[in-house]
């Protein structure tokens, strides 16, 4: 653990089941660690005030905005990103399939963040109501769809069974 102040740290983070050990500056945001250091570019940056949720990932099962977390804070944590949803063979989760079935994405830029927020929801609440879904996705901005199809997709994924 980090008990003396330092401008960079060696961290060990588990991401989608794989452990990465890297030296990172303390100033590096988790989202840039993922995108720039590890080439996991599925998680996106949409703003600079922690408002849009495009950067949402799961840290120890909870949805968080990876632009508002330092990489060093994730030391020892288990992180899941959109790259970890589908299987190695490219089999989509029921949620991902439901997004496509319901036309819940247009440009796709908010989609990884939406999927992670929705995944966290479905893991806590397998059959969410429309209101449950809106609350879970409130921190994810979309400018293309108006959210209606996204909400339908998540509700449908819930009714369909495990995500």
């Amino acid at each position, binding site marked *: 653990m980090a008990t003396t102040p330092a401008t960079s740290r060696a961290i060990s983070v588990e991401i989608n089941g794989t452990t990465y050990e890297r030296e990172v*500056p303390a*100033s*590096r945001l988790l989202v*840039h660690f993922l*995108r*720039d250091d590890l*080439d*996991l*570019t*599925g*998680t*996106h*940056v*949409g*703003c*600079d*005030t922690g*408002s*849009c949720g*495009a950067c949402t990932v799961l840290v120890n099962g909870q949805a968080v905005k990876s632009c508002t977390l330092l990489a060093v804070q994730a030391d020892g944590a288990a992180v899941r*990103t*959109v*790259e970890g*949803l*589908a299987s190695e063979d*490219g089999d*989509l989760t029921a949620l*991902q399939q439901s*997004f*496509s*079935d319901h*036309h819940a*994405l*247009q*440009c*796709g*830029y*908010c*989609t*990884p963040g939406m*999927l992670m927020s929705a995944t966290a929801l479905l893991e806590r609440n397998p059959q969410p109501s429309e209101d449950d*879904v*809106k*609350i879970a*996705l*409130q*921190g*994810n*901005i*979309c*400018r*293309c*769809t*108006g*959210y*209606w*199809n*996204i*909400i*339908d997709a998540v509700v449908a994924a819930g009714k369909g069974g495990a995500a």
Partner: protein
Amino acid sequence: MTAVEIEPGTLQKGAAIGQSVPRKEDKRLVQGQGVFVDDVKRHGMGYLHFVRSPYAHAKIGSVDVSAALELPGVYGTLTGDEVAILTDPFFQISSPPGAHVKDYALAVGKVRYLGEPVVAVVAETRELARDAAELVSVDYEPLEAVVDARTALAAEAPLLHEECGTNMSWEGVYEWGDLDAAFAEADHVVKIGELHFHRFNSTPLETDGALVEYNRGVGQWTIHTNNQFPGFAGIMMGPALRVGIDKLRFVTQDIGGGFGNKITTHPQLVAACLLARKLRRAIQWTEWRTDFHQSMSHGNERWFQDTEVAVKADGTLLGFRTKAIDDAGAYLRYEPLGGVIWAQVAAGLYKWRNIRLEFTQAMTNKAPVSPNRGYSRMQQLWFTERVIDIVAQELGFDPVEIRKRNYVQPEDMPYETPNGCVYDSGDYPRVLDLALELVGYGSIEERRREAAARGKLLGVGIGSTLDSGTNNFAQSRLINPELQFSGNNEVATVKLDLFGEVIVTLGTTPQGQGHETTAAQVVADIIGCSVDQVHVRAGHDTYWNSHAGFSGTYASQFAVTGLGAVKGASDMLAGQMKQLASMVLQCAPDDIELGEGFARIKGVPEAALPFMALGAIVNMNNAGFPEDPPTLNCRYVYRPPFELPDLERKFGNLTLTYATQIHACVVEIDRETGVTEIVDYAAVDDCGTRINPRIVEGQVMGATAHAIGAALWETFAYDDEGNLLTPNFYDYHVPHALDMPPLKTAAIESPSPFTPLGTKGMGEGGGGGIHCICAAIQDALRAAGGAIVSDSHNPYHRVWELLRDPEATRANVEVVSR
């Protein structure tokens, strides 16, 4: 929400056209495997950060980059002085005085808006570039700023561009019909002092960006970017960089939303190009959200002053005259085209024949505007809808009846407007009725009473709008007769590959509209195979040679121009496949039919060639033919049928198609606070033949969400010094999931007689939501003083003002009756 399917159009649909086929794009996008510009990396690339002006208006004294250059890891810088030497100012669309604006990739000598890029710094990491930017020292001599277009036009206003001698960029008078006769015939003249359409944009979730490489040996730039109109970018950048257009290779793949806001990035791209050449490395630039808000692509703010409307006793609208003052911001990047594009819908959905609009555009110390979803037509359509609602309220007409009385009727189609535009098809009364039914119009009075009991003012409003699509770029000559633009085009290639794959390339730059899917649907039905067998390359690449001057994705035209090109290329390919098959099977080409992946002799199913055989023959097995076989590699340029307009009368067809969207909504206003909630909403659309109904509906929903955001929350507001008060998502609130009302949609199809597939461009939406929310608020306020809604933006504080002092806006309206 519910979607109601009403009577699909009459076009004979194949297996794929007309079906809501699942999107090809989705598989990669739901796995985070899209390639957006910030995902593109190059070894040794330098990260670019712009040093931006903290002042809205200032002279630049000295610029000192030495401290920044000393920071380890900084690769180099670029200043305005260098830009002024290495490039020529950007081509100006305008005639004088706007023609004299000098616009460069970085500020030269002066800054004219807060956030204007002044110096570019490139470093090894994003963080270092950001740190180095703080070490750049710029001396500014602040000047007085002007932030209101109305005052910018006054003689004593601070001058932005000395070379222009005025802040007025362009002005023109449009007049059609006989205004004097109309006003003489009128039983009532309704006068509206001032209406205001506010400044906002669509804030696509992905900001602008580019990864630029320079190939020194051949002098070629490769620009990976999310610019949505590479044709326009090339025209701007080539001459500025003093190179031919082919030296600029634009590559896009996935774009995180455009909405018109990614058209005018050429200044930043030029800066990146210069740096790629200077520093001999790839340059990576991703715009920050705050920088986007402060400096990029605001929509046109427009006042309509001294409006007078001639009305007959029975509610027939004879005509109007008005003065439009348009705010272009600090530079003219796509302007002043906004000064003519509104004329595509000068008359709105209405039959009045006598129109006069004086258009004056001013430059101000605010972010330069660029097209924004509904570009310039939305402002005009909002104006016509405000006019009809104000006229209805003042003269006691029912808002539905007065619209139906004045709408262009279906039997009038195709309808030539007073300025020569042709509305191709549509049934506005039917679309309106559907919207009203979906929003429960029949029970409004009962709902109004129920809401009143809860302390809420309930109102219902209609927003009729047209989405005009496929520009005739000749309209630019109404702005500047010297311009040599006209018509429009788009390109597609369709080929049958070696192994029988059908490969398609487009000239467009989709940002979520599903072009790969809809193009594949059209190809599949024409060629005779499944959608899965058609592979459409993602994005745009100059090197595919699959583009022409107007290529890009903007202005609601893909379904006409893009799919027109796809259809043309597919028809060519189908013809060639039949010809080749007939050569092989020894029959006449007309005896061949294509289907299920085979070319076969009609009625002789065993005489069949799979596509793979055809592809193999032309690629690798072409000996023994008595004459050249076809190539099975077809490129088609779609050109819409346009003429040059009459510049003198400003008369001519400016757009090929007109999709209809009529929105209706119900709002409840809290009497004590002015907080406005949308409690019911319906949007009905008619874009002719729908290739993929679900994708069309998605566009309608998106347009609705943007309109709701603009109507209630989104505004680029400035203080008197030119500081933007809403520079990020804290203060520029966009709708989130909990903000959305219940939505019902429906569609009818009135095919366009003018397009290859009967489709009409759609997507922008014309701002229908803004129009209906304004109308609903005004309706709700009838029971509380009858304020007139005269602004497109009605956040809580404005609604409270309307409640508190209805007379202030009522004083804006006067009725003179015979």
